[in-house]
């Protein structure tokens, strides 16, 4: 990933979103403080302490009271990128395809785009608890900090599976979230994602899929399967093929339910495969964002 790619992606995103600001974010329309903005918003009665340069003398003459001009400020929004760093995210599938690499690329790209749009961006790495919490900042220098945390973070050591709830509890309203995970959470995803939505901002859900989710090696006598996070171990009853088939069906059902849940809760949802290029995945998600806004 380099800056040229990010600039190109930013332009592409602007185009996809029809000139609307990329990732408006929470609080975009809420700042009514005068000052840096150019767009007129409304007149307000002059109060002591207001900048006298904002007094609209003509409107004051017409109304008989001292009025000041209030401009819409192009305020920065608060964004958090929540990345699942549990062990299941680190498992490589066939041909060494690694969903963790894709997840880190997507997280960094999102952070870059958001920072470029002037937002303040924070980072939370979580498994069954918060492992890394980088407070939100703006500016291009902050991107390097975020990227370094994401890339250098060691493998998680969750014992009970991932849960985004503990991470969300630390965030303050209004906050928009980008949640990147495999969403193979033993406790279900609804509570965690609902908590994100209740933060008052946008919620983007990116499931990073991997062939390892539903694959078993061939030619090896497998007696049992072991959960990468809980270490729970179960014996196989059926043949390998039957077991794979059943797990794929279960995964398909899980993804469908997740998509339905996101749609009904106004979240933008996309699935990226570990074998896909991160740019393609990001563009795909931006397209879905555009569709959702339309």
């Amino acid at each position, binding site marked *: 990933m380099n800056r040229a790619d990010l600039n190109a992606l930013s332009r592409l995103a602007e185009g996809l979103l029809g000139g609307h600001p990329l990732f408006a974010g929470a609080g975009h329309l809420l700042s009514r403080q005068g000052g840096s903005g150019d767009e007129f918003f409304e007149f307000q009665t002059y109060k002591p302490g207001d900048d006298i340069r904002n007094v609209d003398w003509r409107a004051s003459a017409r109304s008989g009271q001292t009025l000041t001009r209030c401009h819409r400020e192009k305020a920065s929004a608060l964004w958090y990128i929540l990345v699942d760093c549990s*062990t*299941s*995210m680190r*498992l490589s599938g066939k041909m060494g395809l690694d969903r963790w690499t894709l997840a880190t690329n997507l997280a960094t790209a999102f952070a870059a785009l958001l920072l470029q749009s002037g937002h303040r961006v924070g980072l939370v790495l979580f498994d069954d608890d918060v492992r890394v919490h980088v407070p939100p900042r703006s500016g291009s220098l902050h991107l390097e900090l975020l990227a370094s945390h994401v890339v250098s973070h060691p493998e998680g050591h969750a014992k009970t*599976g991932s849960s985004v709830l503990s991470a969300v509890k630390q965030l303050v309203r209004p906050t928009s979230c980008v949640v990147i995970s*495999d969403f*193979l*959470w*033993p406790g279900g995803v609804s509570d965690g994602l609902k908590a994100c939505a209740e933060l008052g901002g946008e919620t983007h859900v990116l499931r990073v899929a*991997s062939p*390892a*989710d*539903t694959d*078993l*090696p061939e030619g*090896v*006598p*497998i*007696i*049992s*399967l*072991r*959960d*990468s*996070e*809980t270490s*729970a*171990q*179960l*014996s*196989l*009853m*059926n*043949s*390998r093929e039957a*077991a794979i088939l*059943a*797990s794929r069906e*279960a*995964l398909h059902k*899980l993804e469908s339910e997740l998509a339905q849940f996101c749609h009904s809760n106004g979240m933008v949802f996309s699935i990226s495969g570990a074998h896909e290029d991160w740019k393609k995945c990001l563009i795909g998600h931006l397209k879905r964002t555009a569709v959702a806004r339309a």
Partner: protein
Amino acid sequence: MLEVGSYFWLIAAFAVVPLVRWLHLRNMRANSFIVPSLLLWADHVQARSKEERGRRIDPRWRLRALAACFLGLALAGLSLRSDNSPPITVWFDGSSSLTVVEGGDQRWQQALPELALDLEAAGADRFTVQSLTARGAIKTFSLQDRVEWEKGFSLFVNSTRSRSNLPSPQEFLPTNRHWLISDGADLRLPQWLMSVPMERVYSVGSTTDNVGLTNMAVRRSLSHSDQLTGVVTIDNTSTQLMTRRLSILVNAQNVFGEDVVLAPDKPRVIPFLLPQTGLNTSVFAISAILEPKDPFELDDVIGLNALEMLKPLNVNPPRSCGQHFRLALESNPAFAVTSRDGGITVSCAKTPNPEADLRIWQSPDASTKAVGPVWTKAAGRLAEVDLGPVQLSFVANGGNGDGIPLLRTQEAVLISAGDTHGIDVFVDLQAREMVREAVFPLLVAALVKRAAKREFSEPIAQKSFERSLSDITPRVIPVRPVFPGIKSVGLTPWLVVLALLFMSFDLLLTIQQGRGMGLNPRSTV
């Protein structure tokens, strides 16, 4: 009762069970595949997977553990012994050396603690003690009261001390267990033990040094009739030079003393001279004492009653024996012609009393001249009487041919030893030619001495021990363990068969389940 040949394999047999389980657990982990989440594979099993964690091990581990365990037990050499403990006979070596005092206890007492433990371990409620050397001495003790049986054991030991022939193998009951308490000082034991079914030997004793009195003899002095002359023999059976003080006591009065230096393993004879006056008293006890005493005190003292042993031999010849015969006896100080009982009985008659010790055959008819009489080899010291120039005559038809000839001619037996006892004399002891000869009293004395089975006419008081009795050196006794009467069944073949059965069953299961490519039909996913 279960007996174990090798405790190492016994421990290994039981240790292999957790080892096999651990190996299966490890193997299960090795054959498990890590998936990102079991969520996609089985929701309903996950909830109880932890509870069944231990049960998810391949159940065939039990078969394999049992097979390995039984093989280990087979290697341990297990055997089953009949619970009916056979009777136990404890043989006691009656050698005097068992009384050597070491550490405050006599040697035989050192074996009692171990013996008590072994008897308890054998599950016996009673046992029999039998003397190795005192025939017929046998006693049974109950083990209920240890103090009681140890006391009885002590009494038994003290009453049966001797050293005689060892019992033959036939005297060992084949249904009994036989144990022996001995110090091995009796040199006959090692070879004897090879022929008897002895299971166990309690070897006792550690002291080897001993100086003992093995002989004391006293007689009247030949030169001084009022004195007694004597000798004692002291034996040093140790391996080093020893010094002792020898004291001779007469009627508890010390009459002689000498410091003696004794070379190792060499007997030494010490002569001494005593006044004879004591013989007039009722008790004339002579004893020799060695000081200081050593652990084996029994041979540090030797004593004899000289009054009894030095008195003349009573002889009671009837008148029919003739005056010359009587005079010949009276002239010899070793004999007392008396009518009191005790001593030698003499019968002189045509047909002498067969119970008499000396039977002198007489005949009213003329006796026959003996031509060239000679002593036979059986005559022994009788042959010292030189009858060369004497003209002997003998009672015709007197000898009936029985007995052992002592003096004979070509034609007849003149003197013979009886089959059972006594001596038959067919020589005419009243013949004039005979009684005038100087050899006559010598012949009479020799005949009486032979009849009395005395080596010397003059009495000698003597007491002696075998030199081997003073040898107290304990020796290790090799024993070939024999377990007579104990039925023991080896369990090894059965254990091997069981192990093979379990292994076969396991193999069968493996073949059946192998069709499922190692998948476990017991799984619940």
